[in-house]
């Protein structure tokens, strides 16, 4: 007994326990990353997107029922704001679920692929449309790291009735649009509804990015990424200033920094604001009479207009795969049941999402699905896209993305000048 308490023994004992605990803690969840087949088919969803979980659940009950019996679907949820951080932790422990929402910052998904955690889905993407493939490849260095559970175009949606009531024709240029804002504001109608609370400020930075692409051409942001231009260059600052100016005039409504995504969408859908910048993923909301009180036939879609003297055109459509999902490489390669699930998703997701949620995806969909008129209009727009462009933060690091989106609200509230905004983002580009 006495020997047990010798300092050396104690130290050795301590070290051994520490090692055991550390190893246990870092071992990860064997059910999803181990050699053997996993019990469940796990999907990490985000709270802000209910369509993917809904569609997968629907698939598990019908089209993929066999796969679901072999490996039951299990959905875990995560707030979008902390998704990247959760993925880093899970990725670091080798404990990523078989299917998970791709990181907010594409750079993180690329990193995860770099250390062998994410599958290059090219081999399982036979049912993916070429338009989606091209967007994915431009985002992920020519690799197909995600499955396109959405294929979106973005633009400005407007309330047809509010415009007609105020004698406004659909604006074709930026100047027309700003004149419409002024007219609406004078009439006591909130011109734009846009969220600016914390990370939801992406809606505001989209205005900056698109203005830039219209004024400086479709390569404007690529030039920043490759170093041939800076965000603090005067012509770039002018874009942020144009949006800051809308903020100063109060066009984004009362306190955009207090408005979150759901509130902003709700403001538009209850007829309290005339315009909203949004992606076509919102079609499921627009087509839902429970949410959309102004009626789907009252919602119009406007391509981001051209800016006087700018080299960009309105046809250069902001397109993306929105909330996409990625596949954990190790779990996929070692588990035939997971492979069967993924195959079933690729084959059926497009049809089910379109049928049940009016969600346009990058997967091929059954041509016989009946869709509402607004969805059909957007489908046609997507089919007609010749050149697609990416969003403001697409080439930024995770840090610059966060800083940019968190500052969006202040820009829309008129509390930040364009110059200050661009400086803040630039100093975090790293």
């Amino acid at each position, binding site marked *: 007994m*006495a020997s047990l*308490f010798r*300092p050396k023994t*104690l130290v050795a*004992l*301590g070290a051994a*326990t*520490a090692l055991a*605990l*550390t190893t246990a803690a870092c071992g990860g969840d064997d059910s999803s990353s181990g050699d053997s087949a996993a019990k469940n088919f796990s999907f990490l969803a985000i709270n802000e997107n209910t369509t993917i979980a809904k569609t997968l659940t629907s698939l598990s009950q019908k089209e993929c029922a066999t796969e679901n019996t072999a490996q039951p679907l299990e959905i875990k949820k995560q707030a979008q704001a*902390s998704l*990247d*951080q959760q993925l*880093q*932790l899970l*990725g*670091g*422990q080798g404990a990523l679920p078989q299917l998970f929402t791709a990181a907010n910052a594409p750079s*993180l998904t690329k*990193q*995860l692929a*770099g*250390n062998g*955690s994410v599958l290059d889905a090219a081999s399982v993407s036979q049912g993916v449309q070429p338009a989606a493939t091209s967007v994915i490849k431009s985002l992920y260095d020519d690799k197909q790291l995600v499955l396109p559970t959405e294929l979106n175009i973005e633009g400005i949606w407007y309330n047809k009735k509010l415009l007609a009531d105020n004698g406004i024709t659909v604006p074709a240029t930026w100047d027309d649009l700003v004149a419409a804002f002024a007219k609406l504001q004078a009439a006591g109608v909130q011109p734009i509804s846009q969220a600016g609370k*914390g990370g939801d400020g992406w809606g505001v930075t989209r205005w900056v990015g698109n203005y830039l692409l219209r004024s400086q051409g479709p390569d404007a942001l690529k030039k920043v990424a490759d170093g041939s231009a800076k965000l603090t260059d005067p012509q770039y600052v002018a874009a942020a200033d144009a949006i800051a100016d809308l903020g100063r005039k109060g066009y984004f*409504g*009362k*306190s955009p*920094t*207090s*408005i979150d995504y759901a*509130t902003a969408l709700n*403001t538009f859908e209850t007829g309290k604001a005339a315009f909203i910048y949004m992606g076509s993923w919102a079609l499921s909301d627009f087509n839902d009479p429970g949410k959309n009180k102004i009626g789907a036939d009252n919602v119009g879609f406007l391509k981001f207009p051209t800016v006087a003297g700018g080299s960009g055109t309105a046809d250069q459509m902001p397109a993306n795969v929105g909330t996409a999902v990625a596949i954990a490489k190790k779990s996929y390669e070692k588990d035939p049941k997971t492979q069967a699930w993924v195959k079933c998703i690729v084959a059926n997701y497009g049809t089910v999402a379109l049928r049940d949620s009016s969600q346009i995806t990058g997967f091929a969909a059954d041509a016989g699905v009946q869709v509402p008129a607004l969805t059909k209009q957007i489908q046609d727009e997507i089919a007609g896209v010749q050149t697609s462009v990416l969003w403001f933060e697409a080439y930024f*690091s*995770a*840090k610059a993305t*966060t*800083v940019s989106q*968190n*500052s969006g*609200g*202040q820009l829309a*509230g008129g*509390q*930040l000048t364009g110059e200050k905004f661009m400086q*803040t983002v630039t*100093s*975090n580009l790293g």
Partner: protein
Amino acid sequence: MHSVLGDRKSVALLLGPALLVYSLVMLVPMLWSLGYTFYTGSVISGFTFTGLDNFTKLFDDPALPSSLWFTVKYAVVITAGQVLMGYLLALLYVFFLRRAGSVVRTLIFFPVILPTVAVALLFQKFFEFAPQTGPVNALIEAFGGTGVDWFATPGHAFLVVALMDIWRSMGFYAVLLYAGLLDIPDDLMEAAALDGATTWRLIRSIIVPLSLPVLVSSLVFSINGTLKAFDSIYALTGGGPGSATTPLTLYMYQTSFAYGDYGYGSTIALTLTVLCLLVTVLIFRATRRDAGQEQS
């Protein structure tokens, strides 16, 4: 007793388990984190040795000074508010609320046990500007003023954070200081009162000096707690507007876990540790000098 503590075996037996747990959950991660300061990267991208790069980056980082300044400002204001309000409440309990004291003490202590996130949500709603008008702005408007967008400007956001944190924790310091005040012998107070000392004089010459040790402990508690504050600010403002209410703790957390740079995150953590150490040493030295003067 002396023989028990002189026995190395019993010392090891008594200290061993606690030391082991402490080492595992505190020392090992601390040393680990210290090691990270010489690296860059994350568990995903892998770690690269960068020598002292993270430390030079500290001086070039434009976000660090504002974060550091916010941390210090927050710590000073909240500590002063918490301890002062706590002390005033304790005096109130001792001198004016001897009978109903326990009810009032319970009520004022109540926010201490409420979950931080719940309190933060409560304050968010209280000070809401849009889409709904919260009670505070409704009151301002009722008196003819214009509502304030509390969370849109750094100054106002700081004010709400300060109010919330002082309200949330003053009950704790009140109880702590109350216990200290109860230790002051009644006969000493009675003697002074008989000698004709006024209430102010009583407080200045008897109560404050005799409760100084517990006051200093409160200060040390408070300043170290507020320098490390995280949850209340994260839940209330999320560090915003922009990064205007981002203390070092939140910046460290974002850097490590959201931006995936464990090395620089650890360097920020080290900065915070040094700051805490400096402040604690300063407070202890200042009070030791006071104690020394009193004895001489």
